[in-house]
């Protein structure tokens, strides 16, 4: 079930979306969207608020039923799967929600350990150790483990949510706004964490974000969404040269420019 167990054949996509249409009533959210995410890549979805990024994420992880089209994850069609059929797939990915979605009646350690208890046959002590390890991996202090989510700051809650998403050593991680609401220091900690996870574990990561710094530092490829379409897909450098007005606005607005200059300085 690990990334290394199923070595990625070149060209085989982890996520393959074809002609996806989503509608809420008469409101068109996705209009014939096609998108491919390759193994081992950090793929980012960006776009203005309400452009359907999170909706696309929810469609991929089967929380939302699109109108038509096809979404293949690990070469398996996810649209129309029932819960039983979806389980093997769900065990291969981890999801970190925008607001954490930690179970508020469990401590942080219990939140992480619960996933392991549910899906593995390991001993209780090893599960506790693994939970503590995952918490440590996300950069949380050890004393955060016995705390309840309501006792944590927003940034710590994000990290705890990431620890839970990683609990099963999933080979595909979905991160919804991993750095939103974090201070710059924690946010750059997340950048590094995302990259080191990918490098060490060979994960594929798909994230939705507004954070231009995170995009420059971590993302291999970026898709810009707007008006229900994918306006452009490519590396940050390619996108920053794009002529499309919305993409230009996104990357060459005051914040976009600052992040761009930063990125150049680092190089």
């Amino acid at each position, binding site marked *: 079930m690990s990334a290394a167990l199923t070595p990625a054949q070149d060209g085989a996509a982890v996520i393959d979306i074809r002609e996806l249409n989503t509608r809420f009533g008469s409101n068109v959210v996705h209009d014939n969207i096609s998108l491919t995410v390759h193994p081992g890549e950090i793929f980012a979805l960006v776009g203005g608020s309400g452009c359907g990024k999170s909706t696309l994420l929810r469609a991929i992880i089967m929380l939302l039923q699109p109108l038509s089209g096809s979404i293949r994850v690990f070469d398996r069609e996810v649209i129309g799967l029932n819960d039983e059929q979806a389980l093997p797939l769900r065990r291969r990915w981890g999801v970190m929600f925008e607001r954490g979605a930690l179970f508020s009646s469990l401590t942080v350690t219990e939140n992480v350990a619960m996933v392991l208890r549910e899906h593995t046959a390991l001993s209780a002590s090893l599960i506790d150790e693994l939970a503590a390890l995952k918490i*440590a991996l996300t950069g949380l202090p050890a004393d955060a483990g016995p705390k309840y989510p309501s006792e944590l700051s927003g940034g710590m809650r994000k990290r705890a949510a990431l620890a839970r998403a990683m609990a099963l050593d999933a080979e595909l991680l979905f991160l919804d706004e991993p750095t939103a609401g974090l201070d710059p220091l924690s946010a750059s900690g997340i950048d590094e964490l995302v990259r080191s996870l990918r490098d060490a574990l060979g994960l594929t990561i798909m994230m939705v974000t507004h954070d231009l710094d995170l995009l420059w530092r971590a993302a291999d490829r970026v898709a810009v969404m707007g008006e229900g379409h994918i306006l452009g897909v490519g590396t940050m450098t390619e996108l920053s040269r794009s002529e499309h007005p919305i993409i230009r606005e996104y990357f060459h607005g005051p914040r976009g420019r600052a992040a761009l200059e930063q990125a150049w300085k680092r190089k």
Partner: protein
Amino acid sequence: MIDERIAQLVVESSAVPSTGTVDVRCSGAWTLQGIATLEQRLKGLAWPGEGDLLFDSSAVSALDTAGAWLLHRTVRALEQRGRNVRINALRPEFSTLLQLIASRSLMPEHALAAKTGMLTKIGQRAWRGLIGLSGMLSFVGESAYVLAHSLAQPQRIRWRPILYNLQAAGFEALPIVGLLSFLMGFVIAYQGADQLHRFGADIFIADLVGLSMLRELSPLLTAIIVAGRSGSAYAAQIGTMKVTEEIDALRTIGIGQAEMLVLPKMLALIIALPLLTIWADVAGVFGGMLMARSKLDVAFNVFIERLGEAVSLSSYLTGIGKAPVFAAIIAMVGCYQGFQVSGSADSVGRKTTVSVVQSIFLVIVADALFSVVFNWLDL
């Protein structure tokens, strides 16, 4: 044959060879799904008594954080016993992972919660009970103060939420309150009819139904229904607002939480509950009347005539007079428990339950006190 899907660890020989190094062969998938059996085996594994250990890991086909942790833990345990351990021929990407795990796992054991003893738990419970009691008292005090304050300045009272609460807690409760007290009157008449008929005292069915419903049962029944319907809703609403920090937001905007959330509910309930009680009186007596006619042949007009003689005005008013007190209890307990919610969804559920149990308990206690006092005053 070696199963590639599970992790394996084989100690080559129990005797220490002349080189002084024991080979340990690791192979297979050291992953979350693969290490379960190995973990069990490692617990009882007899390591050779002395000599250096060389983990030959060339055959490890997969490694994830769980497998890396198991390997790291095993090695560390051996090193703590003073053994020299080397890991050999691990794939480069795997050893990066192992280093990452080793660097992050300084003291993860500390993350485990300390166990609390029995005595500590009893002490904590008792202390929490005391704190809760004093909190309740100060909450009642604060609400009374705000109530007095806004009665002195009636233009500051928020009428819209009061009207809304009147509708939700009062008007919308009419069907259920009416139906239940109708059935209650019906049942009382049914139970009493046989006994009264035996003594030829058929007409006293009106006394039985009238007095028991008007004085005792309809105020109590109505209060219990409203505690279950509205008291719990108050606790859940305020509790959820607390979880989502809406209460804090109200405070920062400069709106008093008692003024905005507690007062309208309490005033609305104090108005609604007596009215509901009157409605319950009517429905209960009607139920009794129906039963009296079908079982004892007491006609409606005879029943009503007798009811007027049997139930004095003071009996009727003592029944209704209890209702505002019950209303205050229900609103206070519901709101107070709502404010006691802390952080979690679980806590909302728990406090809502507590609010219903407590308010029904307190309503019945208050009813008993009323009986004693009325008996004293000879009402």
